[in-house]
């Protein structure tokens, strides 16, 4: 049975703008807590700048570790947002309506956070300008476009700009509603951002086309970004990284972790903003089914990467897999990763009752991201950790240091702060999309049952 609620436009405005126009007490506590986490990250980073990279656990060879794991993890999370939104818009899936904006906002903040990590990792972020931008007219030194480390910023910049514009274009009609409902500085603020939108037929038509056109343009960008992130590794000659399967493997991994993150976020939003009439059990059911497909496709790519590594009989490739599977601490992390990323959550998602249970969906989707963080860690660190032939001095063990733990928490704090601040200023569920769903909502009689139907152009 599908859940449909009658929601008059005024009530939709009341429900979805309540948090943007009035500030509950808990907001200040949440903001303070997240501020502490972000502040701790800033202090950790400042210490890194003062004392150098020695504060991290880097060894002779392990120089890409927790910070780069965080980078790949957050790029991955950022992918589902726009992917879900764009695919659901293009296919005009009815259940997209409450999901799209939260997913897109997650994309923006996750991607912005991801972009910070390579800068922190560099130890001297202000010098990255030499690395990325064409800058030196005097000395004739330019970035090397043959390096994957140049493709990466160009892809992330494109994706971040596109995602931000995608969110803004879809936000304009809702800003007009916020303008009409507010007074004082809020009215001026929303009025400025609404650009004078008044809901003419022409503006709505362009809004609808914009959603489809931008979705069509963003989807290939989304695929390119994580492919290029994977080439940061695959283009290197490091055994365990140098693999042609990395691009699709990273993309599907990103979708797996990202869709899970959207499910987690939807459960949190439903709970804290009391959005039970908007984010229904149907939405979790749909996300669960999507996750089943995505996670199993991801498993296929993971296993293929494993087979390629093992059956090629390349000694160094085998050494990397031996390290991952049999050497501490990776032999402990590996089963945890596999259990949390696939083996525990997926059996739950097979059952409709579990998919419609918000608590189960919350915890299983959260587990997936624990697993997917570990997956990136196991993917990145062991290939740098094993002893190569003809290396005389060896410091094999890489152990993350407190600064790295704090910076990892900083990433989560930053994304959560961004989403909290966005929801404080703007509706996190698109008002006009919900209202359109209500306008188009009908019921039809089929035999002896009345079923919900939707008018579609």
């Amino acid at each position, binding site marked *: 049975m599908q859940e449909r609620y009658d929601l008059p436009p*005024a009530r939709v405005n009341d429900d979805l703008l309540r948090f943007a126009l009035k500030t509950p007490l808990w907001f200040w506590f949440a903001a303070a807590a997240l501020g502490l986490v972000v502040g701790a990250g800033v202090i950790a980073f400042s210490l890194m700048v003062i004392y150098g990279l020695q504060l991290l656990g880097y060894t002779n060879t392990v120089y890409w570790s927790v910070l780069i794991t965080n980078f790949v993890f957050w790029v991955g999370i950022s992918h589902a947002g726009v992917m879900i939104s764009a695919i659901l818009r293009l296919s005009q899936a009815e259940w997209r309506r409450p999901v799209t904006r939260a997913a897109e906002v997650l994309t923006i903040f996750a991607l912005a956070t991801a972009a910070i990590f390579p800068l922190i990792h560099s130890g001297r972020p202000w010098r990255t300008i030499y690395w990325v931008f064409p800058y030196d007219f005097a000395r004739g030194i330019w970035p090397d476009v043959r390096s994957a480390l140049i493709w990466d910023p160009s892809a992330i910049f*494109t994706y971040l700009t596109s995602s931000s514009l995608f969110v803004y274009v879809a936000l304009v009609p809702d800003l007009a509603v916020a303008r009409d409902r507010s007074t004082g500085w809020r009215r001026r603020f929303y009025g400025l951002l609404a650009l004078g939108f008044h809901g003419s037929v022409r503006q709505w038509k362009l809004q609808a086309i914009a959603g489809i056109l931008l979705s069509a343009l963003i989807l290939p960008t989304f695929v390119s970004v994580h492919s290029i992130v994977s080439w940061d590794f695959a283009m290197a000659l490091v055994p365990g990284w140098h693999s042609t399967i990395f691009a699709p493997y990273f993309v599907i991994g990103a979708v797996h972790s990202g869709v899970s993150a959207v499910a987690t976020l939807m459960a949190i939003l439903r709970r804290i903003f009391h959005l039970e009439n908007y984010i229904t059990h149907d939405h979790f059911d749909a996300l669960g089914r999507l996750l089943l497909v995505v996670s199993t496709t991801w498993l296929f790519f993971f296993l293929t990467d494993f087979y390629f590594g093992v059956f090629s009989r390349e000694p160094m490739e085998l050494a990397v897999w031996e390290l991952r599977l049999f050497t501490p601490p990776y032999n402990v992390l590996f089963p945890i990763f596999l259990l949390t990323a696939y083996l525990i959550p997926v059996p739950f998602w097979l059952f409709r009752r579990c998919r419609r249970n918000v608590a189960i969906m919350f915890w299983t989707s959260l587990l997936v991201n624990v697993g997917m963080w570990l997956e990136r860690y196991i993917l990145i660190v062991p290939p740098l950790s094993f002893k190569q032939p003809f290396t005389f001095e060896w410091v094999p063990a890489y152990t993350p240091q407190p600064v790295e733990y704090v910076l990892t928490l900083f990433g989560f704090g930053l994304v959560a702060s961004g989403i909290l601040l966005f929801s404080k200023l703007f509706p996190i569920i698109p008002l006009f999309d919900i209202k359109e769903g209500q306008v188009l909502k009908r019921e039809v009689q089929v035999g002896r049952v009345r079923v919900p139907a939707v008018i579609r152009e």
Partner: protein
Amino acid sequence: MAQMVREAVLGLFREPEAVARALDGLRAAGFAGHELKVLSGAPYPEGAFGEEPERHRLYVFPFIGAACGFSVGLLLTVGTQLSYPLATGGKPILSIPPMINVMYEGTMLGAILFTVLGILFESRLPDLRDWRSEPYDPRISEGYLGVVVTRAEGRVAAVDRTLRDAGAVDVVLPTRGHEDTETRR
């Protein structure tokens, strides 16, 4: 040269059928399609109000943007390699496969930027007019539907009657705002 005060009238409706009736009535009263505007708080299927189809050229914008983005990507990749030539193993200075990545991103970025500009341009946004010259009612955000007659000067009473006959729950009569400068011959 003389100045003519522009007068606009807004009728508020609850049902799309009533809006369609009002548009029919106003057209019958001699108003042209471009003088009538329907406002709503949510998108309705095209033609729901019997309005004239809106024409736009949004689809051109991504192509122009893509061409510009591709050109910038090409310029950047070729320019940087030629300006700072790194001769590697006798290979050509211009390495095309990696250039494709940057050019692809440039193309997509250009297409998306121009699409957004196109959306704003075709939606006539930002609309910096003083909206006191064209009535608007916040009730539209709350679910009411509005019909604006943009040039009602001298025919306000007839417009008011037509809108009410069609089922308008309220009619916002002209407020003086912009003064369009017109040449009266």
